[in-house]
């Protein structure tokens, strides 16, 4: 009896994010049954795709025990450059998207060079580039709103076989990231490096190359995420993406990525991002005071991290040897 109770609570701890998810859905469903309609749920996932794409990129960085605070600024600057290309050079939307992602790669490479070559810790590096990137964009726009050509919204609001385009992009990114992380040499080396950087070096892996690539991937994802989001609204104001880095990191961590490296997955980031979006939209749906929403979100993240900590402790306790029968 006690054993089965323990097993049950063990299951709860192992799958804390999913359990919270189910509780959140159940609660909102009871409050407003229409929240659980297909339309509303697919809307949630669509809304989650923007933070989700960036959170998948962030997961790569977190796996190496790094952090990237510049994603919000990249979400702002990369689409802006693409916007100039589209407005002033008249390139079509797909090329614009490519420009945004390549800009993301370039910005990620700047982070990577500072971190890998100059050995500045990721936290400080990306804190600096957060201001650099955003500052550069603000200077370009003279702090004015930037209007994109009308085609971008047609792309952003389009559907393929009835599925919204952002959702399809989200799925492709998630699938690709999963394959890279779980089934390629590079992906497994990212996990190895996060588990023991020293061990990775001794095993002859190139720590620099691994670190450089995760920051480039993270920025590229952030750029794509920013572009997809702007494709919904068609314009870019100065505050766009400000503070998004925290949503992105929170989504990755809620999805099970450890800030200490070595633990996390692409699908985890998808779940984490969707959970955050569910809570956000649910609060709107159930008519909770707008100003209470950040508090609710904070609580959810707090509970998830707390459960994670308790689970870790329990796992450690299980590892503790007993030397005589209990």
């Amino acid at each position, binding site marked *: 009896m006690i054993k089965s109770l323990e097993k049950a609570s063990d299951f709860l701890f192992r799958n804390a994010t999913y359990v919270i998810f189910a509780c959140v859905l159940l609660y909102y469903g009871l409050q407003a049954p229409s929240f659980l309609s297909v339309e509303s749920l697919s809307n949630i996932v669509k809304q989650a795709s923007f933070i989700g794409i960036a959170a998948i990129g962030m997961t790569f960085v977190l796996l190496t025990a790094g952090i990237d605070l510049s994603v919000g600024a990249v979400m702002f600057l990369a689409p802006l450059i693409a916007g100039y290309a589209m407005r002033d050079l008249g390139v079509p939307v797909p090329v614009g998207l490519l420009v945004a992602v390549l800009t993301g790669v370039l910005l990620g490479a700047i982070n990577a060079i500072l971190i890998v070559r100059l050995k500045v810790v990721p936290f400080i590096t990306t804190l600096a580039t957060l201001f650099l990137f955003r500052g550069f964009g603000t200077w370009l726009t003279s702090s004015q709103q930037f209007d994109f050509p009308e085609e971008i919204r047609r792309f952003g609001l389009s559907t393929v076989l009835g599925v919204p385009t952002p959702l399809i992009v989200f799925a492709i990114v998630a699938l690709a990231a999963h394959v890279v992380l779980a089934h*390629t*040499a590079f992906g497994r080396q990212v996990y190895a490096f996060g*588990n023991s950087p020293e*061990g990775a070096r001794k*095993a002859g892996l190139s720590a620099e190359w691994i670190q450089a690539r995760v920051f480039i991937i993270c920025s590229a994802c952030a750029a794509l995420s920013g572009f997809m989001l702007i494709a919904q609204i068609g314009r870019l104001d100065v505050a766009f993406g400000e503070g998004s880095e925290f949503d992105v990191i929170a989504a990755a961590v809620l999805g099970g990525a450890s800030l200490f490296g*070595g633990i996390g997955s692409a699908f985890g980031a998808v779940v984490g991002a969707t959970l955050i979006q569910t809570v956000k939209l649910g609060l709107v749906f159930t008519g909770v005071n707008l100003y209470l929403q950040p508090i609710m979100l904070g609580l959810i993240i707090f509970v998830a991290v707390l459960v994670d900590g308790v689970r870790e402790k329990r796992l450690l306790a299980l590892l503790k040897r007993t030397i005589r029968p209990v």
Partner: protein
Amino acid sequence: MSDLLTFEGLSKAWFGVPAVSDLDYALRENSLLGVIGQNGAGKSTLMNMIGGIVQPSGGRMLWRGAPYAPQSAADASKVGIAFIHQELNLFTNLSVAENLYVDGFPRKFGIIDWAAINERTRSILQRLSLDDVEPSVKVGQLSPGERQLVEIARALHNEAQLIIFDEPTTSLTHRETERLFETIATLREEGRTIVYISHILGDVQSISDGIAVLRDGRLVDHGAAADFPVSRMIKSMIGRDLGGLFPPRSNQPDSDLILSARSIGQPGVLEKASIDVRKGEVLGLFGLMGAGRSELARVLFGLDPHATGDILLNGQPLTGGPRNRIAAGMAFVTENRREEGLMLDASIADNLALVSIDRFGRKPFALVDMEALSTRTEAMKAELSIKAGNIARQAAKTLSGGNQQKVVIGKWQMQSPKLFILDEPTRGVDVGAKYEIYTLVDRIAADGGGVLMISSELDELLGMADRIVVMNRGEVIGSVDRADFDREKLLAMAFREVTA
């Protein structure tokens, strides 16, 4: 047999201080060389040069007669040299197979060929009689002994010809150690060459065919293992006969109790464990691995809970956690020096000040009186003869194992505790420094303190303790006074055999 690895005048100096000087030796193919030496004798530097971690400042190495100058760990692994370190270099979040292949996965269309690596890993594991371990199992779920075999599997996978073991048995149980030695024998049969470094001299003697002794960076003695009894090893390592390995005990214990623990019980760990330590007594606590010695120590120090029983210090019942125990005059030197005993990156002075720093607060704001503190830490350095330069600047991790342990003991000495719990105080400490630590233990007792000394080395307890308590599976089996010390009897108690 030809020479596999040859050293010619190999030297390494750190900022002008020689760590290895003018080493000449030829390692024969398919031999098993035991390498011994005190900490700081140059073993690590030599291994790091072989492994490409550091580059020699003089002389050269030859691999099968050709010059060998590795620039990185990868270079060493390329020619066929593998290291099995004390701290394993495995990735606990990856599977066994992934650990083997992490530096070069076979791929199909850019995707890892899982079937191939799992199959190949399984065949290597079979050679090491590790059939019960699945290639897809995460290394984090394996026992220390199994992990070590996985590391050996990695060496085999890399087609290593020379496998260097550096203190491989420290975290292994007796059975796992046996299994390791069997594996090493198998490796020999396959024609591989082994270098085995260890402080456990009996093991080195029994498994090696040749033994080399390093002292102060020089090769001071080498010869066939058969002509190398442990006494010769010790003599060569320390360069002089220490006479006894232990200082004489200089006082008799009082009859007053310092510590009295009555019927301590905790489900799954301890059962009715009672233990007394008298004033001026060195009480040895002996038992096999997993007998509950460290567990009892942690309960006594308030680190772990106990369900039943009382603990009295000088007649006062103890409650609360380590803070209260420290305030009551207890000190605990943990068995895990590097992780629990020291702040490795902090200075020696900061480490010494750690426990007693709030005693150096000066009114009105309790700001630390740096002058008084540094006078005290300097005095402690002199008292314990810690071999260091500037203790305010030098990091604790730069010290040898023995001197690190002196710092750990010193941080408690700073506030003159009444009861010392020493858990494996000489683990990973070389012979010379062991003697100094024993002297320290004797002095603590002579000054009227009590010492509870936990050790897996029976000889050490026979040499130092006034009385030995033996535990088995969380129970106290009995206590033997110094006059009745008998190796066989104590071992029998530890194994819980019935003795007449």
